[in-house]
Each structure stands twice: as C-alpha cells, then as structure tokens.
C-alpha cells in the first residue's frame, strides 16, 4: 500500500493529537482529580425512597469538619429540598436519586451536573470556595412540566452558616393571671457544639436564655410568661436564636369575656 508522504505526515500529526487529548484528559482525572460520576453510591428501589436511610430525610447534613452531605430526591417536577444552603469553603457531597423518571441535577455555572436515573444514586463531591447563589435545573426531559423544574443553591459565608433548627410550642390563648409557658426546641444539626442565646420578646417583655447544645443534639427551652404584666389583649411574640426566628401571638383574655375557646 503506498501512502503519500504528506499523508504520512498528516497521519502522524493526527495520532499525536489524539494521544495528546487522551493525555490531557487523563491528567485532568489524576491531577486536579476531576472524578466522574460512577457506581460507588449503589442502586436503590425507587418505591422505597421514603424508607431509605439516606433519602428518608433529605437536605443538608454535617459530616464533621468542613464536610457536608446533601441528599436530594428529584421527581416530576421538583427537587426535595428545592433550596439548599451550604457554607463557603466546604466540601459538599451530593447524593441524588429519582422517584419517577430520569432527571438531571445541574447546578448552573458549576461542574455539578449529573443524570439522575431511577434505580441509581448519583454521588458527586464539590468544593465551594466563594459565597454566591447558583440556580439548579433539570436538563433531561422529564414530562410536560420539565421546564418548571428548578431549585436554588446558596453558598453562604462560613460564619453565617449553621444547621440550627428552631421550633416552638405555645398556647394561642390564656386567661389573664394564669401562668403560661412558651416552649422551644433548638436542634443543632452540626457535629460541633453550639453556644448561643435564645431571646424571647413578648409585648414589652424580654427574656434571655443561654443555650449550649452538643453536636447533633437538641435543647428544650421553657419561657415562663407573666400574663399579669402583659395585660389583656393580643401580644405578638418572637423567639430568636441566632438568625432563626419563630413568632406567634398570644391572646390574654380576662375571665369575664372568656368562653371564646372554640379553638
């Protein structure tokens, strides 16, 4: 077979190009360590997502240090959770699976982009250095509402981030003169301990309480409210722990016009 000498030169150049490409991609995989989505996270039965240890409860979880895990379930046509918050400088591992058809989990403008195939779990780890907001979208057709499937990822400055959850339990109405309490549960989702103060404001009154919670722990807080000092009427209250707030209204009724207790 006779091959023209220019043709030979071209052939050699083409091979160099090809080998060069393979080399750069290999470098990308071992140098900066860009790993591909693979089969490490295993498979899952989509009918059993709700009982799954990982996806039974979705959202952000602290693994310790600057490592976090985010579990997301995709379904037509939303993500659960649809809003995700992680601290800057953290290393975040996403686990995503689908309840119905194939979707994607794509964080716009970043390398976070994976297909979400029912029966499989996609796992990817990313580092977010700078605070910012990123859109999340589905780029695989998943039915007529596909274009409405979106979410938001917020990377907040490290010192503004916590995994504190606050919930309250308070009566709506109380008779004047009676003792009443506003109860709060503060949950610390971080592995590290939490030291802070809880503040309850009601009417003109203000109560403060120091709170110390272990990693992965919670604390019950009880505020005794002096209804006499409040007087009859509607009283808005706010309970604040760091930047978490819960509020409600307490109506103090005098004994005479009581009876409106069809709550």
């Amino acid at each position, binding site marked *: *077979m*006779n*091959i023209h000498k*220019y*043709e030979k030169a*071209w052939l050699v150049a083409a091979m160099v*190009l*090809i080998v060069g*490409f*393979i080399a750069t*991609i290999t470098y*990308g*995989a071992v140098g900066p360590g*860009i790993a*591909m*989505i*693979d*089969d490490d996270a295993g*498979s899952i*039965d989509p*009918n059993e997502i709700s009982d799954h240890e990982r996806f039974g409860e979705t959202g952000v979880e602290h693994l310790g240090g600057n490592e976090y895990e985010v579990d997301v379930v995709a*379904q*037509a*046509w939303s993500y659960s959770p649809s809003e995700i918050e992680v601290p800057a400088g953290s290393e975040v591992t996403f686990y995503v699976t689908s309840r*119905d*058809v*194939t979707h*994607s989990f*794509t964080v*716009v*403008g970043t*390398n*976070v*982009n*994976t*297909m*979400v*195939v*029912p*029966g*499989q*779990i*996609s*796992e990817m780890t990313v580092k977010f250095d700078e605070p910012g*907001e*990123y*859109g999340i*979208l589905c*780029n*695989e*057709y*998943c*039915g*007529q*509402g*596909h*274009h*409405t499937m*979106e979410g*938001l990822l917020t990377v907040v400055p490290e010192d503004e981030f916590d995994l504190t959850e606050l919930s309250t339990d308070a009566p709506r109405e109380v008779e004047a003169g009676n003792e009443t309490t506003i109860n709060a549960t503060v949950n610390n989702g971080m592995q590290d301990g939490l030291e802070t103060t809880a503040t309850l404001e009601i009417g003109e009154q203000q109560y403060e309480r120091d709170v110390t919670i272990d990693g992965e722990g919670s604390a019950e807080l009880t505020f005794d409210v002096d209804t006499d000092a409040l007087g009859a009427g509607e009283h808005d209250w706010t309970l604040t722990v760091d930047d978490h707030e819960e509020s409600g209204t307490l109506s103090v009724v005098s004994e005479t016009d009581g009876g409106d207790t069809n709550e």
Partner: protein
Amino acid sequence: MEVTRMSSTASRTYLDQFPAEAKVIKAAFWSSFMALAIGGLLGLVQALHRTDVLRFIDSADYYTVLTAHGILLAITFTIFFLVGIFTWAVTTSLDRGVVDIRFTWAWYIMMVVGTILVGVSILGGVVDAIPMYADVLFTFYAPLQAHPAFYVGLVLFVVGSWLAGADWFRTWWAWRKENPDERIPLPTFMALTTTLFWYLCTLGVALSILVFLLPWSLGIVDSVNPLLTRTLFWYFGHAVVYFWLMPAYMMWYIMLPKLSGGKLFSDPLARVVFVLFLLLSTPVGIHHQYLDPGIAEGYKFIAMTNTMFLLLPSLLTAFTVVASMEHGARQRGGTGYLGWLKALPWRDPVFTGMALAGLMFAAAGFSGMINAGMNINYLVHNSWWVVGHFHLTVGTAVALTFMAAAYWFIPQVTGKELWSRQLALGQVLVWFVGMTFMSNAMHRAGLFGMPRRTAEPQYQGFNFDPAVGTVGEINAQVALGAVLLTVALAMFLLNMVLTSFNDDSDSLPANTYAGTLSGPEDSPAVLDNLKLWTAIAVVLVIVGYTLPLASIVESGGLFGPDIGGFQLAIETDPALVLESVREVMP
C-alpha cells in the same frame, strides 16, 4: 478498473441504466424530503418558542413537537436518504441491478409503514382523537413510556433498513459470482462496511425494544431497568451518528473529487477509513453516559479512549478530501499555495453545498472534541452546546451534503434537469449562514448553562449569566438563524418540486463518480476481508460492553426493581393547578 468501465456508460443517466431501481430511489428520496419539510418547520416552531420570540403552542405540547423533530430529522430524513444513496452506489459501482426489485420495494414499504406508525403515535400527543402517547423524544428513555405502536413502528423501520442492507449484500454476492477476482468497487465497499456496523449497533436497540420496552408497554412485564435500556440505546446511539454520516462521507469521497475536476487521492486510504468506522463506531456509546450514575469510571475511560481514536478516520478524511479537491482544482488550471481554491467550481451548488458542509463539519469536530473530553463534559452535557454541535454534524454536514447531492441525484433518477442552479446555489449559502447564526448562539448558550430539550429556559429563581453579550442577543441570534434555515429549506423544496415537473431533460450529466489517483490495486487485499473486520468489530464490542452491562444487570436487575411506566402530563383542569403525575401501569 472503474474508470475505464465508466467511460463506457458515459452520458447515460442512472434512470437510463436502472429504471426500476431509480423508481425506488426516487421514492426513498421523497420520503426523506417530506420528513425534512415537516421536521424543519417544527424546528422553527421550537426555536421561536424557546427564545420567546413567538409562542403559539402550549409549552406542554413543545415536547410532542420536539419528539417529532428529532425522529423525523435524525431518523427518517437521514435514513431514507441513505438507503436511496446506497442503493444507487451499489448498483452503479457493480454495474448491475438489484437481484429482485420486489424485495427492494418490500423493505422500502416496510420502512414507510414503520414511519407512519411512529408518526401517528407522536401525533397522539396533540390530537385528542388519537388515543396514543409518545412524548418520549427520540431517545425514549424509560420509564417514560410510549404507546406500543411507537416501539413497533421503530422496529419495523429498523428491520426495513436491515433488509435494505441484505439487498445490497445479495446484489454484491451476485456480482461476486460473476466477477470472482475483482476488488470490491469502492462505493460498494463503503455501503457494505456501513451496513455491517449498522447491524452490529442496531442489535442493541432492537434488544432494548423487543425484550424490554415493547413487552413493558404492552403490560406483559411490569418493570424495566432504566439504566439498562438507556445503555442499550446508547450502544446504538453513537453508531447511528456514523450511520448518518457515512453516506455524506461517501459523497465527499466519490463525488467531490469528480465535481472539483479531478480524482480521489487514494482508494486504499478510503477503505482504511471505512474499516476504522466499522471497528470503532459501536464500542464508544458510553461517551454519551459520562454523567450517568451506575457506570464505573473505568468503562467511561475506555469509551473516551476509543472515541478519541475514532477521530482518526475523520482526520484522514479531511486530508483526502482536501487533497482531492486541490488535485481537481489544479487540473482545472488552479495554481499557487491557496490560489487553487479560486479554480474550484463554486457556481456549482452540488460542489459548493458539499464543500460548505465539510467546512462546518470541521468546526463541529472542535466542539465534538470538547464533548468527548470526559471531564469537560460536566460543563456541556445536555446543555444547548450539544444541540449546537449536532446541528453542525447531522444538521449540516449530513443534511446540507444530502441537499446538495439531491441537486445531482434527483435529475439522475427522474431524468429531469434541475429547475434552477442559481436558486440551488443560493439555498446552500443561506443554509450555511443560517446555521452559522443558530449554532454559534446555541454553543454559547450552552456554555453559560442553558439546558437543551426545554420549552421555556427562563427560570423563576435565577438568571443566566452569559460571558459575552446578553441572553436576549443570543435568543435573537437563534431565531434569526432558524428563520434563515427555514427559508433555505423552502428554497430547496421548491426547487425539488419544480424539478419534478420540469420538462427539460437535454443536458443531464452522466451517472459517474470519481476515479482514483491511487487505485484499489495499491491496497492490500486484506482490506476487503469483510469477515475479518466484522469479527474484530464484534470482539471490540464484547470487550467494551460485557462488563458494564453485566454490572448494570447485577446492580439493578434485568428488569429493574418494579419500575412502571410514566406519561407525565400537566393537568389541564384550571381548578387543579397542581401538576398531576399519572402512572399508567397498575
């Protein structure tokens, strides 16, 4: 040698030589043009809808339109044209007709019936009178589930194409008996090698449909493994892109040199190129699944390496085609380093269309190399970049070559002169310019994250942030490009219709193709050993696919964990604004 043989048939058209075959080819071309006409118009609807320039359909129906656009253009238009060209190539280069013309009609009709079934089931998405659903796009990923008619139609179409391949093989075997010692003529060699990898790759999608999707849509089995059917689809899905491309390559190898006024640079190298496609087209499909869970990185790496080597035949083609054009130009009196370019027949729409298509394919090569780069794929996967890429490859390198070729072929098979060469030249130029605008904007949109396959890529909670220009500008550019493309399409169809009614048939070119500077006698006989190459191709596929498929079956089960079908529609009842998820399987 072909060149001498062909001079004997000089000044006779294909219609004169093979009137019966010419009829089937003409029918196949018209089926192809009809798909192009409808599909192209739907493309315009999509472009205007997505960019919010003009929205006159419901966004929920967008996906019906997109399914039709994808199927009609990527499958129907391309493959009907291919069977036409290959039938021409085999009969012309063997200088004998098909063995049994009834068989030829049979596969053509089978393909038509398949297309109609698929078309009607897609139409069910917008026409209430048709109780079918097939809004599953041309990739039909389970557990999205189409009506059984959709799958049956696809199977008929593919089996029709298998029979077409059998037809070409039979014709070649018949010729072989009459000419036991001759080399396979180049065009036939190209058609046969292409057919072989088509058999190899369609096996995957046939398996996916016949064993899994069709029984599942009929309720015979009630679960599928979505990753398995998806992997089987892509086992076919990359090779199919080469299936579209091979007739275009054939045109570049055997028509362009002739049109440039010269000969093909090297017959042996052309054979090497087609053998490489036979070997490498299939064991690369996993490069479409770089971002799929459930497939180990190692398999992705192997697919990536194979893909990169698959660049080789295309790079070789670039060389041979340009060298052949230069040779032709110099025969026509061209001189100088680049001055020879002036001597090429730029006024000939067949030549210019193919040359521009080749140029765009070079550009597509660059964006393709990005796609193939495993880790860069994170950035572009399923973004509009990909759509920009394949409108350069199948949407231009293939489609524009086909349209340009039609300006030569339709007169050949109808015996009627092309109605207007000027209009034809204008048409290929307008297509080129239109695609420049549309594809450039799509690529750029992909880079800032705009997704493909999305009716309204405008989101509530965030905005895109383009590196250059604004989203509005990009949308305008896409719309402009799409309008130009549609104009070009109309120019093409007008010319084809008027040619069919043209009474003029005086100066028809003869049915010839390019001779070669370095002929088959220069190439080792082993190149023609189709059995050997097929065997190696099968081994490569087994090596590339056994382990990934085994691990997918192992982790998800052959039929998956009770995964039923979904037909996800937005509830239209305004009282129920909530989207409802309709599961069709019990």
